[in-house]
């Protein structure tokens, strides 16, 4: 059962990474214009094709 000693911390750490990522996304304004982001992804002008 000693496997739990590092599996549980790993699981919690991964969860915290996800939580941190979400809070970062929230703080950087990615949830302010949800309808707009849904449309921006359809606009492919920003995709620069590789030149070389």
């Amino acid at each position, binding site marked *: *059962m000693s496997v*739990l000693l590092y599996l*549980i911390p790993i*699981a*919690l750490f991964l*969860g*915290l990474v*996800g*939580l941190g990522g*979400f*809070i970062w996304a*929230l703080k950087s304004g990615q*949830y*302010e*214009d*949800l*309808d*707009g982001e849904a*449309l*921006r992804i*359809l*606009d492919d*002008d920003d995709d620069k094709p590789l030149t070389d």
Partner: protein
Amino acid sequence: MGCCGVRHEDSAAREGGDAALWVRQDDDGGFELNLIAPAINCAACISTLEKGLKEIPALTFARVNFSLKQVRVKWRDPDFDPAEVIAKMDELGYTARPFDPAESGFSRDDEEARELLRALAVAGFAAGNIMLLSISVWAGAQGSTRDLFHWISALIALPAIAYAGRPFFRSAWRALSRARMNMDVPISLAVLTAAMMSLYETANHQPHAYFDAAVSLLFFLLIGRYLDHRMRARARSAVSQLMTLSATGAMVTGDDGKRRFLPMSALKPGMRVSVAAGERIPVDGVVEEGRSDVDVSLITGESVPEPAGPGHKVYAGAMNLTGPLVIRLTAHGEDTFLSGIIRLMATAEQGKSAYVRLADRLAGYYAPAVHVLAGLTLGGWLWWTDFVWPVSLLHAISVLIITCPCALGLAVPAVQVVASGVLFRNGVLIKDGGALERMAEIGTVIFDKTGTLTLGDMKLVADGPLSADSLALAAGLAAGSSHPLSRALVRAVEERGIEPALVVNVIEHPGRGLSGAWRGRALRLGSREWCGVSERDAPDPGLPQLAFAMEGRPPVLFSFTSELRPDAAETIRRLQRAGLRVEMISGDREAPVRAVARALGIRTWKSGWSPQQKLAYVEGLTKAGGKVLMVGDGINDAPALAAGYASMAPSSASDIGRTAADMIFVGSSLRAVWLAIAVSRRARRLMTQNFAWALVYNVLAVPVAVLGYATPLFAAVAMSASSIIVVANSLRLGLMDGRLRKSFALPSGAPSGAGDNREKKAA
């Protein structure tokens, strides 16, 4: 890009305005301007605007917020003129108006939404991880492994509850400190006692830890609360956008002769305000120069425009129709027409008893009942076990946890979110959640006439001997005029398939009429006096009229009525069939009101009423026990709207009308009223069903808890199951959406979209 680039008739914005007044300086020396552009409505708009704005070299930042139809630009050069941004946007086909996000009350920095989202994320994280540990415990983890899992759960749960529970604790505390009850009181109590008891159990190596139940309860409830908040924020921002667009300022001519667009707050009495033809008059004042016809339907409900000339008093909200006017601003404050209306509204609101929301009313019974039950359980177990405190407390607290109103807490918000979503998609905005519940109870619907049952457009009355050639000549004369009666005449002639005659030398005489010539004979179209029609020749029918005279022929009169909103007749019929009393009260004269009442089959109607009379009537009905839905748009309707049990206004309403109303409908079709009532009745039924489900669940689960058989696994399963049933039941309202659209088959065969198109053109 067919869907974009609709130019809006909004000349104040076209002239650029003094955008500098709305510029904000941010902390690091840059400048920022927020603009609102209602024409942003397709994916291509985003890139068109952003790319176009990036061509202005001074701008360092330009971003479109599609949800709010706003654009934010930033720059660092202090010499840059922000009017350039507005000009550029206009060139791209978007009328933009600057606004101050802090002042207009819908900033993008919606702190409450962010707090809820953060709490939701924390609760979700905690619930997921604790559930994993709990499942291992339920699967049979024993002894020290179980204790270890419980301790880890406690370590996650306690901070998560302290953080994610704050919205509930705060609201519960607010209610308790005012000696009231709401659903958040039992929720908070259950979560806190569950956490404390679980900690105690964990410390004593016992199996009853409810950390998972406490945290997932918060998680479920936060989802409901966030969705509810988002729906309300969206409706609120749509409403305040309408406000921002209607009057942010006035075009003022200074002493130096320079014209500047000033915001409302910078206006002072004595200033000279110019109002172009086709613009809404922004302030109360006296006409100094110019002649025009003024449409006062928003203020008095009268459908005939009245002529205005020097010395004439005009009020904010009136529409200037035919000629430019210069108005000298009269004193702000106590003596304006609007402030009188606002005083009336304030008294109306005081007289209205505060509505207690369904959930709060229920909480008033539910919470005490649950707490008494827990107390009895404690007493009973103490007596049964000869005062063994830990076991008795455990059972009492498990009663609290089991009865925790997870399903009850979701019962109302879940329905509300779905209902306001259905209404939002059908063009009805709800400003306040309680409105949905009140709307379901109404028994009488009172309509205003002008602007509510009718549109601004006029229609030629078909009766009477109208010869084709006089129609053709009058239409030829009216073709160039923007007066609503002239436009109605031209429309009517075109509908009849008559070719307007070619009239030359057409001159518009604002306030009087038009003159011109056809084959050398003088023509006149306009008021009765303008064409020399006296009371003796033809009695005044009370309807708006145009007189037409040709040299050497007796004058002809054209009568008009207001055009009804699309679906008005069908809506009234449906309301009456649903057992509602339908009445109409109007400030307009008797003849037009009677005509509309007859056309729509409304038996009870009143005409020529002042705002005070309307208010008194609604208050009288309310006192007699009636529950009145007031539907109105004008400034004169605002007090009655405030006094009504529920109220609705079209989006074309006056600012104050929109402020006073609980719900606002977009688009010109009146079926929104029927729709709102139908959806709210259905919503109320679903809420009641949800409460019934939650109670059934309690009736089944409480005996188990009282008798001490509630295990953590039982609590988790029972709680989730009841929540899922309630949410699923609420989602059924969404199915109504498609059915509603289909069920409102239009009897006239007119395409349902026709009204919406007209609204777009007029906007």
